[in-house]
């Protein structure tokens, strides 16, 4: 996929995620962070955007989710602005897998995290060298 197409998809992430009811999932066991539907569809395939994150795309190149491996020890370490919010929302949980729905309006931190996360992904994608 050419970079312009990938960037366009990631720029439309916010609207798409809202429409599809995406959730944040932090798998502590793997230290992997997912932003996508609760179940990633069968036809989704991973494509790396840069060293930090990958996206799941369908066979028709529709966005199906975002994945960040080594999230806590890599991404958060390289993006200091996430540290406090990440600790508050995800790391403090005892569960091995933490699922957070951005529609949860009771916790205002989630909205702040979502906006920051989506903005960061767009900036990363714009600056990325996408090969495939």
């Amino acid at each position, binding site marked *: 996929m050419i970079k312009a197409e990938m960037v366009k998809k990631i720029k439309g992430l916010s609207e798409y995620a809202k429409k599809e009811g995406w959730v944040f*999932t932090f*798998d502590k*066991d*793997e*230290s*992997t962070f*997912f932003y*996508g539907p*609760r*179940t*990633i*569809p*069968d*036809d*989704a*395939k*991973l*494509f*790396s955007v840069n*060293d*930090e994150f*990958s996206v799941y795309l369908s066979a028709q190149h529709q966005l199906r*989710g975002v*994945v960040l*491996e*080594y999230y*806590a*020890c*890599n991404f958060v370490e*390289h993006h200091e602005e996430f540290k406090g919010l990440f600790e508050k929302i995800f790391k403090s949980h005892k569960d091995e*897998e933490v699922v957070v729905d951005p529609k949860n309006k009771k916790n205002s931190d989630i909205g702040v995290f979502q906006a920051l996360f989506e903005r960061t992904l767009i900036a990363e994608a714009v600056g990325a060298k996408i*090969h*495939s």
Partner: protein
Amino acid sequence: MNDGVDKFCLDIIDYRGKRVVFLEVIRLKKAQKRPELRNEEFINGQLAKAIKYPDLVYEDFERPNERLVYYYREYRKGNETRYTKVVINIKYIPYRVVTAYRPDRIKEDCPKSKSKIIYDKSRDG
């Protein structure tokens, strides 16, 4: 296969002769976010091959003393290379599969998350 909580969906010997199992309960848990793990053909095919005949094995970036990451190169088509990646917990006997999926690059070889390479088939195999 055995019964109860220790039911395995895969029980195999790795490239070094170590027994590796994939617990069914773990597969079910991970399959929500890893569509490949809903596919029996993948588990008995690429995943098994990655454990038995890996092209590359790295220490896990976050838990180097506890986990190894096995890569099996599936194909290269144009600019796209597809791997099977298997994360294995080596603190258990037998070893246990933590998760598996199909990335298009080797995360452990990225400048920001460089991990120690344990085995390279092209060099050691």
